[in-house]
């Protein structure tokens, strides 16, 4: 995967919060508009929805002069190298990885269990009216055709850069950027160059598959299968060593066998 892996480098310092990426994504992926209302912020919508695969998160911070400054962050599916959603998905082919390393999905195969919602380290998958999974698919169709995803194509400031993941990272490192997601979860498909701590952007400091999901899938599942066969083996072992508690047939005559 390493060499063929495509990804984004999102250079937050360049972002002007124009949200062209949001609009271009909706256009290419034919996503309906979500009605929203003014909540006293330019951030809109306030969260990812089944019809919104990426969005700009507006973080308001106090600057040194006592004013307000914005941090902009493009929020979306991170296309994790070790993807929690793919770990838990019980329906083969519903979530799958393309040869470019994209975590894509096939709605027809989604069985609406919503395990991916619980397993995502970034709380990304959404379920809409059709009760099927919905998230950024990194325009897998465009990428397969050799094109850049709609958001990267539309971005006027080159905040969203698309290409070979390793090349993008090498370039950002050469420019002495602070990277997020280079190695976490076997490398995120979306690597950020941040201007501050990840927490300032609402990103986890150390992204990981939730502990309970890890215990469920990587500990209990294998041990449970072992335990099942172990208990069957133990019973067979008991049968051939100690053996059953047989009834002594000759005692039965004393108990009165004759029918009245």
């Amino acid at each position: 995967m390493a060499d063929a892996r495509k990804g984004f480098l999102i250079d937050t310092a360049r972002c002007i919060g124009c949200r062209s990426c949001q609009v271009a994504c909706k256009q290419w992926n034919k996503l309906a508009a979500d009605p929203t209302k003014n909540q006293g912020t330019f951030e809109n919508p306030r969260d990812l929805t089944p019809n919104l695969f990426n969005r700009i998160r507006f973080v308001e911070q106090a600057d040194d002069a006592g004013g307000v400054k914005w941090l902009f962050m493009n929020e979306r599916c991170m296309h994790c190298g070790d993807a929690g959603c793919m770990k838990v998905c019980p329906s083969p082919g519903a979530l799958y990885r393309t040869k470019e390393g994209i975590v894509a999905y096939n709605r027809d195969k989604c069985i609406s269990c919503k395990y991916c919602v619980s397993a995502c380290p970034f709380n990304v998958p959404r379920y809409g009216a059709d009760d099927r999974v919905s998230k950024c698919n990194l325009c897998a169709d465009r990428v397969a055709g050799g094109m850049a995803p709609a958001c990267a194509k539309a971005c006027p400031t080159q905040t969203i850069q698309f290409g070979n993941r390793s090349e993008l990272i090498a370039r950002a490192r050469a420019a002495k950027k602070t990277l997020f997601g280079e190695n976490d979860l076997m490398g995120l498909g979306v690597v950020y160059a941040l201007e501050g701590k990840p927490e300032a952007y609402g990103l986890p400091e150390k992204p990981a598959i939730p502990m309970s999901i890890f215990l469920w899938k990587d500990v209990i599942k294998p041990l449970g299968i072992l335990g099942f066969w172990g208990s069957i083996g133990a019973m067979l072992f008991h049968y051939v060593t100690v053996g059953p508690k047989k009834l002594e047939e000759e005692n039965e005559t004393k108990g009165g066998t004759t029918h009245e």
Partner: protein
Amino acid sequence: MSNYVERFSTRERVLHWFVTAAFITLVLSGLGLYSRLFTGYFDFFGGGANAILFHKIAGVLFFASSLLLFFSHGKEVTTFDEDDREWLAGRGGYLSRDEAHFNCGKFNPGQKMFGIFIGVATLALGLTGIFIWAPLAFPRWLVQLSLLVHGLTFVLAVMFTVIHVYLATIGNPGTLEGMLYGYVRRIWARKHHPKWYREVE
């Protein structure tokens, strides 16, 4: 005098096998959800989405019937006396071929503990099942924890059920008929549950 004494009433037997049927449906429909290794089990139900539907219906039926079964013997299986302590100390005589005699009532302590376990497991599986049923209506941490507890309790329930089936069939010949026809042989009752036998003799 008949060779047989009544062990379980018709109502008890029907309820027991109803719980069993719901349990088996739950296991078969849930295996594909437990791991992709068992995806093939979805085919019994016509695909994963249908398996989830069956799992939900069987889950409600199991929850109700299993709790009913537990509470219809709740006092018996949660009360342990001095004879039970002796049985526990001697591991019920299951670890040796030597003939062991214990003064058991209708249920021995092993059966009581199995009954308590299934009662608790029913509550745990049912409660976590609600959160897993509608994960978007509950906090993420609660659903994540529920998936863990649901999986763990399922594994324990299956393992204890393997032991239950062994002990009620080939491990103790003559036991199964009590749950099939309702009657057991007197010699069986005297050997396994003497205190109970004296009550019903």
